[in-house]
């Protein structure tokens, strides 16, 4: 079977063919499609867990019960899951346990840039890094075999460029029949990590690591590609692809098992070449280890430690360092063009637009065109999700965004610090269920007086519409109990819990004002379906140019359908969702926004 697959699709297919039985994940770019694809295969149990920590625990539990299991997450997800991950590294496995960390160099959709290869060293577990979809497919069978043979979880580390690029995959296998039937094997010294038992495990982990190092020497995907002796390049992942292209003649040591390192293989390679260079994305993970072996090597003094690499960056850095000679191919000179930027936006009809418009105006974040900017008031602690885009102008209605679930705790910390401003925490429904609940319990327990706004759009929108415990549907499409957010808030002791329609500006403003004036902790649940899930659009709005006085208030919603070109404000009727939203119509002081498309509203080409 030859197919064009993304790295994530290839990982899912590879895991399926390797006989994975249980898969758990929390959505996170660029890892999301791994579980989405696994959920479609027959004979696999796949779940969206409430967060990555729980996913890891489910994976570890399935492994203890003897079946092959997979847990996938984005790089920061492994921070959340690091506690059970370290536990799994200590207890080891029964059925194979593979943990996928999809890193995001360049931060295409992340709050930080971190190199999760360090987790392999921290946890003393083996790590595999695929270089394209074909390798991502093949690596999965190795990963499960290594896990079972060495009694260890295996970390598979991809990056955005591997997970989200598509390339050709020749899938050779069929689904492997599981060798073991599910069954728990009672073994307290292995699975009950009392200090006395854990003390026994640590020496076994060290011994495991040295056996893995020996295995790495002959691991088939660690390869020397002979070339010119002048330059030897050690690389892995997508950086290898870029480097091969920039240096078609050089010798390469391409590593796919990057922890523990094949030290003899590296030494042999270093002896074959005159100069040894490491080209890797983010931290000098390989470079530092090679240097610590006493081998002369260069890497990060030539190539950037921050951001994604690409062939252009590698070529430019190599020319500067004298690694590449010969005449530069005539290239158009890149001038920094002074073009307007185009950041991503909240969608037309987004249920977050109304609440952010209200917070933006109450918090004095935006002003009408031509009017001076005002001093901001109200502190808005934000969180991770689509709604983080509310931080962009014109809304500018977010003051902090740290990590999943952080906003409620940060808001409480600011209150306890004694700031004079009123404080709100804004958090999405999926993020609230992921890690906001503990923060809310803490705020109740510690007598907080902040306002918590839960943006309930009934989905995990940012990562592409995944189900979560509040939607009442599982990852595999089955109906289940829907967690009632209002009941949760009341159940932990909050008296002031309000529900409000995300498309009713008056009601939103009234509830926010009432909560800000209230001396007690309050929760507002702003509910409205994600615009991407709208089944149909009806009656797009238009601007009556006779009534419009160009005040610009509607532009402050930040709706992509409302635009100003030259001396005209208009609504792009192909984008407006119409009756489902009407926020612009509700706020227009001159009632100039009307239902039907009439005079002068047909856009020019």
């Amino acid at each position, binding site marked *: 079977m030859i197919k064009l697959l993304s790295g994530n699709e290839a990982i899912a297919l590879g895991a399926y063919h390797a006989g994975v039985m249980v898969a758990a994940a929390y959505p996170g770019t660029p890892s999301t499609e791994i579980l989405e694809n696994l959920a479609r295969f027959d004979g696999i149990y796949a779940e969206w867990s409430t967060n990555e920590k729980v996913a890891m625990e489910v994976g570890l539990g399935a492994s203890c019960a003897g079946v092959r299991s997979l847990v996938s997450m984005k790089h920061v997800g492994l921070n959340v899951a690091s506690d059970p991950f370290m536990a799994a590294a200590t207890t080891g496995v029964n059925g194979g346990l593979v943990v996928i960390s999809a890193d995001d160099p360049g931060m295409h959709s992340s709050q930080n840039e971190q190199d999760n290869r360090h987790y392999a060293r921290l946890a003393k577990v083996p790590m595999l890094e695929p270089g394209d979809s074909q390798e991502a497919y093949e690596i999965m069978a190795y990963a499960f075999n290594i896990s079972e043979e060495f009694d260890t979880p295996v970390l598979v580390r991809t990056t955005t460029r591997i997970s989200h690029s598509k390339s050709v995959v020749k899938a050779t296998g069929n689904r492997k029949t599981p060798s073991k039937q599910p069954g728990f094997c009672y073994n307290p010294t292995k699975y009950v990590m009392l200090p006395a038992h854990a003390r026994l495990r640590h020496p076994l982990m060290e011994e495991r690591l040295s056996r893995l190092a020996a295995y790495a020497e002959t691991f088939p995907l660690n390869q020397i590609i002979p070339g010119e002796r002048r330059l030897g390049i050690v690389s892995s992942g997508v950086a290898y692809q870029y480097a091969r292209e920039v240096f078609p003649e050089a010798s390469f040591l391409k590593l796919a098992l990057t922890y523990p390192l094949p030290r003899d293989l590296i030494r042999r390679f270093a002896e074959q070449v005159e100069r040894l260079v490491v080209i890797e994305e983010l931290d000098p993970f390989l470079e530092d280890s090679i240097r610590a072996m006493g081998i002369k090597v260069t890497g990060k003094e030539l190539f950037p430690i921050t951001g994604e690499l690409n062939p252009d960056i590698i*070529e430019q850095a190599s020319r500067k360092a004298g690694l590449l000679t010969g005449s530069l191919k005539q290239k158009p000179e890149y001038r920094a063009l002074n073009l307007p930027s185009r950041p991503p936006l909240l969608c037309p009809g987004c249920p977050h637009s109304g609440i952010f418009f209200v917070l933006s105006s109450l918090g004095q974040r935006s002003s009408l065109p031509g009017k001076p900017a005002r001093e901001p008031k109200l502190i808005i602690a934000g969180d991770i999700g689509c709604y983080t885009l509310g931080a962009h102008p014109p809304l500018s209605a977010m003051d902090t965004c740290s990590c999943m679930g952080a906003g409620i705790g940060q808001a409480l910390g600011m209150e306890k610090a004694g700031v004079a401003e009123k404080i709100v925490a804004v958090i999405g429904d999926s993020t609230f269920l992921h890690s906001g609940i503990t923060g809310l319990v803490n705020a109740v327990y510690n007598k907080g007086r902040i306002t918590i706004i839960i943006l309930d759009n009934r989905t995990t929108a940012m990562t592409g519409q995944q189900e979560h415990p509040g939607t009442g549907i599982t990852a595999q499409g089955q109906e289940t109990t829907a967690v009632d957010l209002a009941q949760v808030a009341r159940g932990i002791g909050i008296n002031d819990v309000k529900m409000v329609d995300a498309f009713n500006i008056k009601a939103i403003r009234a509830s926010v004002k009432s909560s800000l004036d209230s001396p007690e902790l309050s929760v507002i649940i702003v509910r409205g379906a994600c615009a991407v899930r709208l089944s149909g659009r009806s009656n797009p709005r238009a601007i009556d140019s006779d009534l419009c006085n160009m005040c610009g208030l509607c532009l402050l919603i930040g709706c992509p359908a409302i635009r100003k070109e030259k001396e005209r404000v208009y609504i792009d009727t192909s984008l407006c969702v119409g009756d489902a939203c009407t926020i612009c119509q509700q706020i227009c002081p001159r009632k100039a926004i009307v239902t039907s498309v009439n005079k002068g509203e047909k856009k020019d080409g």
Partner: protein
Amino acid sequence: MDRLNLLITGIGGQGIIAASDIVAETALAAGFDVKKTDSLGMAQRGGSVVSHIRLAPKVRSPLVKMGEADIILAFEKLESARWSHYLRPDGIAIINNHSVPPPSVSLGKERYPGDEEITDILKQQTDKIYLINGADLAEELGNIKTLNILMLGCLSIFIPFEEDIWRDCIAKRLPARVVELNTTAFEQGRREIENILNTETGSAYGKREG
């Protein structure tokens, strides 16, 4: 043709990812090794999007190098200028003659470049600029969402894959109920370029402008 570097650019929500998937599938069906990768930013609608597609007997990097794209297919004018430095000298730029001002322009903080400025930027790389009134044509077909397939029709004239392979891959990628409409859009796109090529004396830009 034994290799091709292609960039598809535009705005999130215009169907760029689907279009680049179809090109990649068509290339695979036509016997090439192919890699593609999309830069999506925060993956939501309305942001600047670029998709890189490379085909050759053996492809390593999924990213096209600056100045090495043979063709840029742009779904919006500003986005054609933004990525123009990826075009190789004398490469081909196929542009939907349509402007969508970003929010900074609507709020009066930045200025949308005029047609001449955009042409000047592109002309530093090439004179082979094909402006297509794609958005209007797609609306005339009854669905603005056919824009991406119409643009693929334009592109297909410059890539020697058999037309049937394109059609098959389009049909495989899209829901059955819209295949017929999109096939019409594909043909319309082909005709637009053929008409320009048939009447062409120099740059196509001047003739198609306005």
